[in-house]
Every structure is written in structure tokens, then in C-alpha cells.
């Protein structure tokens, strides 16, 4: 079949070396000294949290913080990221129920990010907690410092593409207008099939269609449906 004339260039190796972001305190070091540092960060105007406690994948509050963060970064409403999400009429979004759905990709992603970039991830979750009344405030806070900015970009790409791009690689290539092949690693077949960019394109992942014969001959937009085809894109909290 068709090979692009240039295709040989992009010899991206499938294996990306896992490493903690350089210069960060390792998670283990932090936990071993944890007894002395249990001060809780104040929710305040400061964009960079004074202290970010370690993320706990089994905590529904931490998962909600992750979902709030992800919603702000991806522009997707939380129920698209977590189909069984239930606000439960709680005033504080952190007390909502993230739910468990058959794919549960949020858990895979939470664990994946936590294993690779825990300290900065903890900071991002704290930013989400600090600004959980208003999604649009999260992004400027994230952009205020390089470590959170680039990890946030990795997280967006993770949700959108199901692939992991190391924050350091993104940073290396972030000079404006840069053109580069950035190495990546597909997290899992499941993650690939749940990439959000395909919904944004009003299509489906290449290799994973649940649609039915002939659909490509028809518009994706139903004239009967008056709501926007991209109704899942929002900057509002549920």
C-alpha cells in the first residue's frame, strides 16, 4: 500500500524510557519524610500551591480533582470522561461520585500519570482543587510554571490520543513554530480506542468503529437533533 515519500523519517521507537521528571523530589523520598510535612495547602490566590499532597488513586476526592483538571484541560464535560459520574447533588464537586464504568479509563490514566510524574501531578491536582469553582481559572494557573504546564500538555495528549508524550520532550520542542517528531508510546489498546480527538473530529478511532454500514455516506449531524454535535465541549462544571 501507499507509503508517503517521506515516511521513513519518522522512525519513532515504540518504547519510551520511563523516568521521573528530572530535578523533582521523588515520590518515595517525599513519602518517607511525610510525617513531618502534613501541612495542608491553603486554598488561596497563590497559583503555585505551597504544598501538594500525594495523589491517592483509591480516593474518590482525588479522582474528582483529576476529572475537574482533565475537564478544564480537554474541554470535555466530566460525564464524557467518566460516564458513570454522578454529581449526587453535592455542593462541592470533590464530593461527587466519579463512578465506575466498563472501561474506567480515568483510573488507567490516573495511575499512569502518577507513576511517571507524581510530584507535578500532585501540584496539578491541587490547582484543580484550588480552582474548582471555575474551570476557566485552572488553565492560567497551570500555565504559570513550566513543570505544570508541560505535564498538563502531556495529560491533554493522553486524553486526546491515548498516547503518552513525555513532558520533557514536549518542553524541548516548544519553541514557537517548532517542527519535530516527538516520540510517544501508546498506553494500551483500550486507551487508543478511547482517544477523544476522534470524537472532536466527529469520527471514530481508525481501527475501532462501532458504527454501522454506510454511515460514511451520511452527515454525522442529525437534522432532527437541534443540539450542537459538539455539546460535550464545555467550560462549565456540572
Amino acid at each position, binding site marked *: *500500500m*501507499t*507509503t*508517503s*515519500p*517521506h*515516511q*521513513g*523519517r*519518522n*522512525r*519513532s*521507537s*515504540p518504547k519510551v524510557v520511563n523516568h521521573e521528571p528530572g530535578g523533582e523530589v521523588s515520590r518515595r523520598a517525599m513519602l518517607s519524610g511525610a510525617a513531618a510535612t502534613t501541612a495542608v495547602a491553603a486554598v488561596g490566590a497563590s497559583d503555585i500551591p505551597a504544598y501538594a499532597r500525594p495523589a491517592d488513586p483509591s480516593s474518590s476526592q482525588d479522582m474528582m480533582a483529576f476529572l475537574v483538571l482533565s475537564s*478544564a*484541560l*480537554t*474541554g470535555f464535560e466530566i460525564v464524557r470522561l467518566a460516564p458513570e459520574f454522578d454529581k449526587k447533588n453535592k455542593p462541592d464537586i470533590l464530593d461527587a461520585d466519579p463512578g465506575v464504568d466498563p472501561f474506567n479509563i480515568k483510573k488507567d490514566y490516573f495511575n499512569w500519570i502518577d507513576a511517571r510524574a507524581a510530584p507535578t501531578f500532585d501540584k496539578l491536582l491541587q490547582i484543580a482543587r484550588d480552582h474548582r469553582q471555575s474551570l*476557566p481559572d485552572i*488553565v492560567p494557573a*497551570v500555565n504559570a510554571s513550566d513543570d505544570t504546564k508541560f505535564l*498538563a*500538555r502531556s495529560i491533554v*495528549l493522553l486524553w*486526546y*490520543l491515548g*498516547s503518552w508524550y513525555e513532558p520533557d520532550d*514536549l518542553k524541548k*520542542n*516548544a519553541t*514557537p*513554530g*517548532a*517542527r*519535530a*517528531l*516527538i516520540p*510517544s508510546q*501508546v498506553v*494500551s*489498546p483500550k486507551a487508543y*480506542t478511547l482517544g477523544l*480527538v*476522534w470524537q*472532536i*473530529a466527529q*469520527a*471514530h478511532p*481508525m*481501527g*475501532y*468503529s462501532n*458504527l454501522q*454500514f*454506510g454511515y*460514511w*455516506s451520511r452527515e*454525522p449531524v442529525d437534522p432532527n437533533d437541534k443540539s450542537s454535535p*459538539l455539546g460535550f465541549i464545555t*467550560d462549565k462544571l456540572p
Partner: protein
Amino acid sequence: MAANNCMQCDVAIVGSGFAGALIANELSAKGIKVIILEAGPGVQPNINDYMKRFYTASAKVPESAYPPELFTDPGKLAAGRPTSLMLGAANWQDPKQSYLIQKGPRPFTSTYERVAGGTAHWLGTSLRLVPNDFRMKTTYGKDQSNFSLPDWPAAINSENMSPFYARAEVELGVSADVDEQRFLGIVFPKDYAYQMPRIPPSLLDQRMGDALAELTEAETRFLEMGKPVTEVKLRSLPAARNSQPYQKRRACAGNTNCIPICPIQAKYDPTITLNEATDKGAILIDHAVASEIVVEAGRVSQINFINYKDEAGPKTGEGCVKAKTYVIAANAIETPRLLLMSKNQGHTSNGVANSSDMVGRNLMDHPYYVAWALLPPTATPVFPYRGPLITSGIGDLCDGPFRAKRAAFRVDIGNEGWNFVVAGAQFGADPNVTTIDFVNGMNSSGLNVQQFNQLGKDNAALFGVDLARKLNDTITRQFRLGFLVEQDPERNNRVTLSSEFKDALGLPRPEISYNISDYTRQGFVAAYRMRKLIFDKMGAADFTHRAPDPASDSPGRFEEIIDGRSVTLTYGGAGHIMGTYRMGDDPKTSVVDSFQRSHDHQNLYLVGSGTFPTGGTANPTLTLSALALRTADSIVGDLKSPG
């Protein structure tokens, strides 16, 4: 190899791809005992492994679903193969990365698989050649002594091939509308019907068809069709892709990854026929690399092979098979490799079946020119990434008086946006590249500038709603074209054996010399102009030839002066490997006859697209399948007749 330890059968076949599987099936149905040697792994019980490889591949190239591992030194593989990742400036001539030892001057850019089922990564397009494709010299080159495109043998023409095309179409299961396919004189019997209704066209097809429905003669004069062209029709591509239940397989669900693999086997692949053959008694020996064709007294007497277990080898044993008739169906690079490797202690020092010296020569592809564009923000989106990878094309321009001077082309209309063409594929595939641009403030795609991003600034880095809306707005307006340009046969485009580099079994790797001629390059020039016409009619902005030039260091580039300007053009491979043991009536200038029987050895057949004297512009699979069935009939006849 002790002859009395050999396996015995009536017909031994090397290779289990399209041609090998079809022949094995025809023969087994008649009770003929068949053994098939397959270099790679056998048929898998399910495609879990293939799909997993595909899903987790960071580069979803045509080979990405199939073993062996993509990033391995080919010298360390028992059954290596070229891949799309070995074609860049930095690696096409590095034997540690490229399986083929490419001598140049330009790269040969097509690839193949070595697994049971052969090149199952095909798209599914099942076009017949047009009548003049079989008669290039007679029709267009009578007055040119050095016209490089010969006629096919007298017995092979559009009309004689029609019943074989029909039989091949039944086995593959082709969806098409016969009235739509009667163009440029293609012969169909009066009440012919394809097996299934045509695949519905995509939204892009419909839009492009509308845009090309009314053209002026001035706009189309460059095509030199010999008659005024005021409309260019888009036609559905006949495809071995179910539009209904067929042979107990599901209909297409538009998974948009036909290449490399259809997740629901709605697209035909040769394991289907291979399984039918083995159900009828054919024996498939996998992990068996044929290493020598033994010739005694002018006839093939056995084929030796090497066994291995792991991808990296080493060899675990040897074997041989003795038969009455032998068929080599190992594709147009591996077949000449095997023929040339078979030296018979010096008795066939130039290789088996090679009295013409044509084995390995006349290597052809359909050099592929890709072009991609973006519709303006005011246009209705075309919604890529939906449906089969390609549903329609332009075939009407592939024949005409211009063929006396320049190559013809056929146009593919891609339904997958900029997936493999974005930025000339230098920076990865889409939608990743476009997405990363708008996340990381980069501009690999060329889109992240004010002119195209409508954001009032270059190199925007976005999050959230802004990002989602921008990507939706942008991706839904991307589309691409592909032009398959006919390549003429040239003696010095050839496959030989590397004297230096071997695979893990110690066999010499194929060495390739390759270039594209002026005839073909002028076909590219016409394609370049056609691209402009199409994009202009659709109001789209071309990104193919936009600075910075993606072609600037491509090893496949060449320059042409077009309308007074120097333009850099590049080609890729269509995966159509042809010509290296061509058919002809004259044994001095051809390797096989019209039945694909070797001129030199009566009991040896060489099948597949390697026998094509010219390539036309149609994908070769249907034609090679039809020829394989004709060959099967010939073999049955051989075995029936006494002696």
C-alpha cells in the same frame, strides 16, 4: 538434501499470499495434493495479536499489524521484510535498518509482508486493467523504437481476461456497480453483475464529484486526452469489501483501517482462501523459508527450505519437497531472490529460469504522489476518518493519446484526512501532528499560523474548549489525494542478491537498484497539475507544496520545471511490486509465458504481479488473482495429460 527424505506432493507452492492461496485452493478442490511453503508464521486462530500490534503501534504503518517486530536489525531476522519506516534519508541505505539493500539512485518505496496470507495489508481495491494497458506498444509506441512499454502476450487482453477476472471477483467478493465500471472500454459480459452492490461513496467523494462536474476545456487541456474534457467523473472503486454478508463474513463497518487490517474481516484477505485450501487437504508448512530450487535435466526436481522457530532465528532444521509441478508465489522481490539464489552448484549460476537474464529486472511500482489540502473555514466540512480508507477514485484519466509521451495516473480520494500525509509524514501521523501543534504551540503541520488558524496569532498553544473547537474546526476540513502513476519497465531497475548482507538464516538479502524515468516523471507533472485543478475547484488551500518544503531532503525527490518554476516532487510506494519475471511470447526477452510458465523449465510456474510486463494504473491484485486462476487451469491440464 537427501532426496528420499523430501515431502512428496503433486504441486509445491512457495508463498501463501493471493496467488499462492488461490492456486492451492483451485488445485485442492480437484483432489490435487498441494504443499505450501510459507516463510513466516501460519494462520492465527484469531486476530487478537495482529490487532494488538496495530493498536499499540506508535506508527500505524501498513506493516504495523504483522510480525516480525518493526524495529529490528534485518540482519537478525529469519524472514525480514521492508517496512515504511526504512525509507527516510537517514536510513534507506543503512543495512542495519533497511531489509532491502538499496543501491539507488532512488529508493524503492514499496513494502510487503511475510506471513501466511501474504500482503493482507492491502486496501481491497479490485480494479481491472483497461484494454490499452495490455497493448501499450501497439497502441502508443508503434512509432517510437525506444518506447519502453511492451505489449502483454497476445493471449492476454481485456476480453480474454474477462472470465478470469470474474472468477477472481467471486472468490474475493467484490462490491461494485458494473455500469459504473464500464469505462475506457473495460469488457464485461452482457448481464454481468458484481457479487455485491457498490460501497456507498463518502461525503468527500460526493463533494469532489460535484466540484469536478463542470470544467472548461482550457482547464483540462494539460491532460492531453485527445478529446475535450468538461467533466471528470468520480467512480466508486470496486473493492473486495463486503457490502452485504458474503461467505459468512460481515459487511464493512467503516473501521477506517483497511490498511493494515480489517478488524472484522469485511475486507477479503488471502487467509480466507488459504483456509479453504487447507480445509480441502492442502498442507501449509509455516516458518519454512525456501532456499533453493533444485534443477535436474532442465526440470525442477525439488525445493529445499530452512525451518526456524523464533523471529530472530536461528535455523532449526532443513527440509525439502518434491512435486510434479512447482509454483513460486513469493512476491516480485522474494521470487527473483529465490530464483537467483538457486545456483545448483554452478549449473544455474545466473539463477533458475533466467536464460533471458530478465529475472529481477524491470522492477516497477506505482510511484505514488500524495497531495493534501485544507478547505476554507467557510466551507462545509468533509468529515475525514470515516468509512473505508478509500471509497472512490478517478479512473477515467488513465488512458489516452498522452501515453505516447507521459505516464498515466489514477487518482485515489482518501477518506482519512491528513493521516499519513501531514507535513510529508516527517513528524508522525495525524491526527497526532495537528493535535500536538495546537497543544504545544508548534507548527509541524503548517496549520498553526494566523492565515490558517484564525486565531490572530501564530503558534497558538491551547487548552480546553478553545483547543477542542479549533481541532474540530480544522480536522473536519482536511483531505488528501493520491496519484498512482504508471511506471515503465527499465532494465536497470532490478532486484539482485547482496554479496555482503544476509538475513539470520544466512541467505543473501535482496539488493535493489531503482530510479524513475522521465516518462514517469512527466506523469507526475500531469498529476501535479491535476492536483491544482481539483484543489482550486474545491476552493482548498494546498499544503503539499507549501514552504517549508517537506520534500527538501527526501531521497525520493526530483525536480521538474512546471510553468517556468522549479518544483520538487516526491514519490512514495503504492505497495504494487511488479515486473521482475515478466511475461512475454519471446523467451529471449521474458521469463514466463502467458500461463506464467517458465520458458526454461516446463514444470515451473512463477506467479504474482512479478509477471506483469507493464503496470497500467490499476492496483495489481485483481489482475494477478485472475492470472493465478488461469495458471491453476494450466497446471490441472499439465497433471491430467500423460507424461
